[in-house]
């Protein structure tokens, strides 16, 4: 339920505000695996970048990969 709600917030964030989008991304990555976020980030890049680096997708991928050890530790500690 919360997971879907967060995805909805991020989906809305794409069209309203980058701040809303990134808040959703950070929250989602902390609590859930973030693979599906890559598709949302991809949509952001396809919608808004006319030419150049797809920064949103790259940042999201780096965030998912970079927080992986932290998340593993966090989940081991709390589960």
């Amino acid at each position, binding site marked *: 339920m919360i997971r879907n709600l967060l995805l909805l917030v991020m989906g809305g964030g794409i*069209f*309203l505000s980058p701040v809303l989008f990134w808040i959703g991304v950070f929250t989602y990555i902390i609590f859930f695996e973030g693979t599906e976020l890559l598709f949302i980030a991809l*949509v*952001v*890049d*396809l919608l808004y970048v006319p030419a150049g680096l797809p920064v949103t997708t790259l940042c999201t991928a780096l965030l998912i990969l970079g927080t992986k050890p932290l998340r593993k530790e966090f989940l081991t500690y709390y*589960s």
Partner: protein
Amino acid sequence: MTNWSPQNNTRLIVTLTVVSVILTVNAFSNHLVSRAVQRIFEPLSYTASIIARLSFGDYVSSRSALLEENQTLRERIAQLDQESRALPILREQYASLSRQLRLPLRDRELTAEVTSHILASPYGTFTINAGTETHPAFQIGDLVLSAEGFVVGTIAQKGATISTVRMALSPGEKHAAVINDTSVTVEGNGRAVGEAHAPREMKIHEGDMVLVPEFRFRPIGIVGSVSPDDSGASQDVLIRLPLSLTTLRYVSIVPR
């Protein structure tokens, strides 16, 4: 919360590969995927822009703010009325001067509607409902102007019915500009704000127009504030667009 497992890793690798392939195909197919996605998401984007305009613009206003806006609009109508009366004479003068200077007469400006919320993009871009099918005449690089004549941005990508506009003051954009006969380099900070540094002795005041030669000396904003920098050798100039981007609905496109 979900635990990490080898399955998650495989999913992540597969997703990363798929995303990379889509981005590569898009880059090498002249943004074909991009245009398809824009077309699919246009209704959603348009609806969100209307919601944003309503929530930021119309409903969250006090009575006094509305009265003030009403007064400004009345004055604007009176001004437009005056201008419209003078238009035929000015058009004739323009045609006559163009003939004397042997300049080609400029085509009429094209008008387009903003279809995405301007502040939604992290890249300082927004979309308009103009493309090769609806407005075949305009080109990539053409200027996108607000009703007040300020350059909001330039056409960055052209689709069949939707085009992407890169804002003139989007992050990292640099323009050689002229403020009160002083040449400066304006760098965009995003959200319709930019900054420039000018020598201390130059007289720059709040409200001065910031004109860009490469945009045919059209303004990209006005001086919002001027303050001496830390060393005192120069002055920091803050530039802003004197219009609300959240409520901007129609723009015109003119050749560069």
